[in-house]
């Protein structure tokens, strides 16, 4: 197995600049600034085939090449608002190797020509933010951030911005609004952030893991990195495995590894005597897959062809002891809470989905409600400014579709357990005129 990001990750004190340097840290930055032009860096990144690790999987080199060359203020924002349920890879990376992130940021900013950079970290990660703050101070003192970095004439400021708890701020335009000191409402696209982002300037937004991979790509060369993994999904990916597994945690896998090997081989599979019922391959926003899909190779394209997505690389395993309705209800409630309320289909759709799932759970629903629920999901997808609504509609829709029999059985069972929805039947029904009592 290849370990790139997780090499030396448990080295004691890797979060200090001395240990990081002893492990070869900041060497790539020095090389980039002294021997490479920004275009060469972008070319290396494009050649590596690196795709964004935050969820959308957009080619990172291409993203940087979209930034206009004009002489205006350009920005680089690191998205460390890791709030996709099931994802915790960035937390481990930032906590244990903050300098690798700083090195990646400076390299990416150099390639994009950005002079101001920000890390937007979610407010809940207090310990990680403190570690990053200390690392940034160390790097500034060592002349790795600030003016004239390593004598190259390249300037870059870096500010750590702490959020305050909102899932939507992980969406790139919501993040920008939040960073500008507003409510984190997503913006209409286009214009895309590459043209008009933070403070209306061209902005590159990258995930923590993507940025941290960049020094390694520079070190081994883009072409060499592209040899790892599959043709369309190059490199290694941190996978956060959680839920009903014996060894939950982050694993670095080569893209294209069979999913069964990750879930059973690395994470130990579900507890004794239980089977995988369904699994989310890319965080809670990804359409669910079943046990029969376990042999799919874990990479961007295969999962997309299977009707799901790799997303942020968070595998959540649900075993056969858990009713699918409770999973759906939990998810829907989360998205209802986190919907920012800007677009009607998402705001109302998430609320209605919760109400209908509660009806299913209470025994008030009929199988027809499942069709209504599916149609609500269809009307959310693609009709909002951002994909938060889709992120609920896709997994819920896939659950209703793939586990319809179980939903129907649940409705029937709940109805028998709870006739009349818990209400007393009317003892003396008033008959409509002309009707006769049976």
């Amino acid at each position, binding site marked *: 197995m290849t370990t790139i990001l997780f090499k030396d990750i448990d080295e004691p004190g890797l979060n200090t600049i001395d240990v990081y340097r002893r492990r070869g840290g900041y060497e790539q930055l020095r090389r980039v600034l002294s021997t490479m032009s920004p275009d060469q860096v972008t070319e290396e990144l494009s050649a590596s085939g690196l795709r964004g690790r935050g969820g959308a999987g957009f080619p990172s080199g291409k993203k940087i090449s979209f930034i206009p060359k004009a002489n205006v203020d350009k920005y680089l924002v690191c998205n460390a608002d890791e709030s996709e349920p099931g994802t915790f890879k960035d937390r481990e990376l930032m906590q244990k190797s903050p300098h690798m992130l700083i090195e990646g940021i400076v390299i990416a900013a150099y390639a994009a020509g950005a002079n101001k950079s920000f890390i937007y970290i979610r407010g809940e990660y207090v310990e990680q933010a403190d570690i990053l703050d200390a690392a940034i101070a160390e790097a500034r003192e060592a002349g790795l951030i600030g003016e004239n970095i390593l004598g190259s004439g390249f300037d870059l400021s870096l500010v750590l911005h702490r959020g305050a*708890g909102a899932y939507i701020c992980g969406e790139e335009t919501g993040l920008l609004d939040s960073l500008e000191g507003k409510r984190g409402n997503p913006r209409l696209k286009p214009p895309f952030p590459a043209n008009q982002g933070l403070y209306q300037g061209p902005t590159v937004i990258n995930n923590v893991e993507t940025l941290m991979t960049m020094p390694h790509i520079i070190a081994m060369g883009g072409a060499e990195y592209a040899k790892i993994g599959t043709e369309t999904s190059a490199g290694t990916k941190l996978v956060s495995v959680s839920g009903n597994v014996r060894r939950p*945690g982050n694993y670095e896998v080569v893209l294209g590894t069979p999913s069964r090997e990750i879930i059973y081989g690395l994470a130990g599979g579900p507890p004794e005597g239980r089977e995988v019922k369904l699994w989310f391959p890319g965080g809670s926003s990804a359409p669910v897959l079943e046990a029969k899909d376990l042999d799919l190779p874990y990479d961007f394209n295969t999962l997309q062809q299977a009707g799901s997505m790799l997303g942020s690389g968070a595998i959540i395993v649900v075993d056969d002891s858990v009713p699918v309705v409770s999973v759906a209800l939990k998810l829907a409630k989360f998205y209802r809470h986190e919907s920012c309320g800007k677009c009607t289909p998402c705001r109302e759709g998430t609320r209605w989905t919760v109400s209908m799932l509660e009806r299913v759970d209470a025994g008030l629903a009929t199988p027809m409600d499942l069709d209504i629920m599916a149609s609500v999901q269809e009307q959310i997808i693609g009709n909002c400014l951002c994909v938060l609504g889709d992120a609920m509609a896709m997994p819920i829709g896939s659950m209703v579709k793939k586990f319809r029999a179980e939903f129907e059985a649940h409705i029937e069972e709940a109805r028998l357990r709870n006739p009349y929805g818990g209400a007393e039947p009317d003892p003396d029904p008033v008959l409509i005129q002309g009707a006769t009592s049976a």
Partner: protein
Amino acid sequence: MIGRRRKRAPEAVLTPAVERGPDVLPPVAEAQRTVTRFGHGSRVPGWDDAADLTKDPAEVPDPATTPVAQALRDEIEAHMAKYPDFRSAAIPALAAAQRHHGWCSPEAIEQAACVMRLTPGYLIAVASFYDMLETRPVGRHRVYICTNISCSLCGADELMERMQQEVGDDPDFNVRAFECLGACDIAPMASVNDVYVGPVTLDDVPVLVEQIRAGTPPLPGKQLHLRKCVDPNVTSTGGPNLRGPQGETR
């Protein structure tokens, strides 16, 4: 009253609308009497309260009549200086004001608005959006229990229930179910005054509550920073990351 701006001396204190007499405000319905208001009449944060449209919006607070503690002022100004646009400091400023006042109280918002030269309304809009900015008075011990999907598969709902039973109606505690806290590897988990602990068993709950009350570190053996990487391909060269941000050994 709309269209005719009236200057009223800003009062820093909360005055329930009913105490200010019928000559200042129109008669308030019985149900509205508990709505707390700023001195200038705007309702305090809480997006589901009805807005009083007969009031003029609050203006940028006057520094001469809005006392702000020097430490808080310095902190907010330091945040404002970090960004190209000072308004970016809204969240850090509110977080600082919240640390100072315990919650985003009307005074806290007023003071942050005064330092930032923004209207209280702007900051209320921001404060009511984010989960970690409290728009109601809360206890000082923050216990966030993750009840999202991975944690609830591992028993977070039972943990939440047990925690609420154990804490009871202790006003010092702010126990709340939180959305995914990004630590599903230690599920079920909790963030206790910003320290991540887990997996928290039901038997740990009384111990944990006792530790919080006593002010000692929560579940020292189960804190997140002690956890090693589980990937078998990682060659562990030593213990877990035992050094703190400043390189100190913990």
